């Protein structure tokens, strides 16, 4: 109680009930889903898109051109689905990380996940691996980076949040310098652009195979984490209070870190580094429904899916050539955060 409160009262008044928020976000997601499939160089009427989707689900008689179907289902659908899945994953795991570290300014990236992934991808590109090898390496090294951060912090006598975050910083620096080393030696005409492009994050290369490969694990992890949403409230009270409330905080924290890391690593492995989503979305979620994780977690998931799909639509339609989505999320995320901090609503530690 000697500490300054994290938020002022205004911040915590929730605007919507859980039911309202879920309903509104679901409707928005459906509308945006259809619009996203109609957007692009080859414009398709949203009504035709709707008809084509309904035709996939129900056996309707259809008079839709095959080219249109190819564009909708083979070219645009994988990317749209990926945006929804990745947005949901990054946001839900971001909210979960904020709960277990009891800090509104953290995301899975603080444990070195993104630089680990970047290192893996750069290494794969350098040795001439195809896109599957790149995804696999990115995934494996992102997990290695997180494990390494946890391992380093464990060597301390009493590991706490600060040692864990500092370990994450060390691991991040290590992998970042290795990435620079790779960039320096990479062929500047073929491999360097691939590395740079991967690091900026993009959904343009995603195929249906990628989506089918990551979707089951992502959906199962999202559901498991969702089922643990009440426990996030308990964990956010800190180790001692969680123990006094009959919980095993170390075990619970490990499970939640595992699920969140899996979600983020799988996402990053197919999309490259897309920052700031996991930080920004839970904050907007908190403004909408308050800090209770029973409401915050589902709302962050739906909001994250909507947000990333919207940003990806912008990334591919603002200019004639595609803008890497990681640049856009950072350009939107950082000012938003500066705004929050300037309003004095958050402590830094």
């Amino acid at each position, binding site marked *: *109680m000697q500490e300054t409160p994290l*938020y002022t009262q205004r911040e*915590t008044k929730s605007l919507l009930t859980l039911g309202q928020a879920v309903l509104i976000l679901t409707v928005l997601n459906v509308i945006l889903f259809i619009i996203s499939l109609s957007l692009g160089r080859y414009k398709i009427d949203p009504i035709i898109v709707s008809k084509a989707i309904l035709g996939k689900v129900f056996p309707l008689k259809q008079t839709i051109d095959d080219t249109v179907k190819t564009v909708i289902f083979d070219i645009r659908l994988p990317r749209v689905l990926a945006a929804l899945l990745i947005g949901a994953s990054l946001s839900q795991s971001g909210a979960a990380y904020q709960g277990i570290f009891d800090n*509104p300014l953290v995301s899975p990236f603080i444990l070195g996940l993104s630089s680990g992934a970047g290192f893996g991808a750069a290494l794969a590109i350098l040795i001439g691996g195809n896109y599957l090898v790149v995804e696999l390496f990115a995934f494996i090294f992102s997990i290695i980076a997180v494990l390494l951060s946890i391992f380093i912090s464990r060597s301390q006598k009493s590991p706490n949040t600060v040692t864990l975050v500092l370990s994450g910083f060390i691991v991040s620096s290590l992998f970042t310098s290795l990435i620079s080393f790779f960039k320096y030696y990479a062929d500047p005409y073929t491999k360097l652009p691939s590395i740079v492009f991967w690091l900026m994050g993009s959904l343009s290369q995603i195929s249906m195979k990628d989506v089918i490969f990551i979707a089951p694990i992502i959906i199962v992890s999202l559901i498991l984490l969702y*089922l643990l949403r*009440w426990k996030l409230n308990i964990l956010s009270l800190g180790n001692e209070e969680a*123990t*006094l409330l009959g919980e*095993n905080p170390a075990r619970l924290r490990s499970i939640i870190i595992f699920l969140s890391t899996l979600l983020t690593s799988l996402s990053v492995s197919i999309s490259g580094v897309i920052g700031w989503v996991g930080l920004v979305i839970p904050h907007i979620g908190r403004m909408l429904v308050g800090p209770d994780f029973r409401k915050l977690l589902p709302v962050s998931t739906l909001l994250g899916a909507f947000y990333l799909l919207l940003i990806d639509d912008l990334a591919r339609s603002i200019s004639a050539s595609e803008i890497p989505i990681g640049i856009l999320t950072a350009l939107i995320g950082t000012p938003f955060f500066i705004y929050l901090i300037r309003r004095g609503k958050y402590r830094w530690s």
Partner: protein
Amino acid sequence: MIKIDNLTFGYFDSEIFRNLSFEINEGEIFTILGPNGSGKTTLLKCVERLLSPKGGNIVVSGKDLRDYSLKELGRTISSVPQIHKISFPYTVFDMVLMGRNPYLDFFSLPSEKDVKIALEALKEVGIYHLKDMPYTDISGGELRLTLIARVLAQNTSIVILDEPTAFLDFKNEFLVLNKIRELRDKKNLTVLMTMHDPNQALRFSNRVLLIKKREVVALGKPGEVLTPDNLRKLYDIEAELLQIAGNTFIYPKGN
């Protein structure tokens, strides 16, 4: 109710207390008094099983503390910590509802019944009107009452409070201690707490344990134990007992 037998605790080579033995009876308010650094909080944390002692046993309701599962322990002993680290701005109601956690399965949420119990606890403590306030926005006294309501929602027979009046103003100090005694009477709770003010210990406890580094100065009824002699041993201070309108007050001598 709680039997502490030959308890020794220390970090590395330094011992905080050694061979401590005493019993806490069902339904009593048992207060531990001692100077800063005497190991009061450490002792409480041993009973809460947050720290494990170097030697000795703690038996709670006839069962060794080490044999309790975490969940079982959460249904037997509840605590009001001295310092609550401010977290996300949950509502006062949500905070109290978290007291129901030891009764929930791994993947389940609080039920209608849990909500009822939490609301009942808020009424009992007298802070029902605060239920929708963010708990980060209420006063120190109200926060302490919120944590006491959480303890009630947890529905344990033993309640531990570490300096329940720390950081509170004159009025809230009295309010909180009175509430603790009232709830003990109503629910036959066994209360174990630490305190700094001998006058409050005198007024609100059934028995008092005076500890100084590594030794027990005295243990017994507050009127018998809180003597000028013992207070000198405990705090190195000269004090006298004043009788005013049938009440005893401890008054430190000096200018």
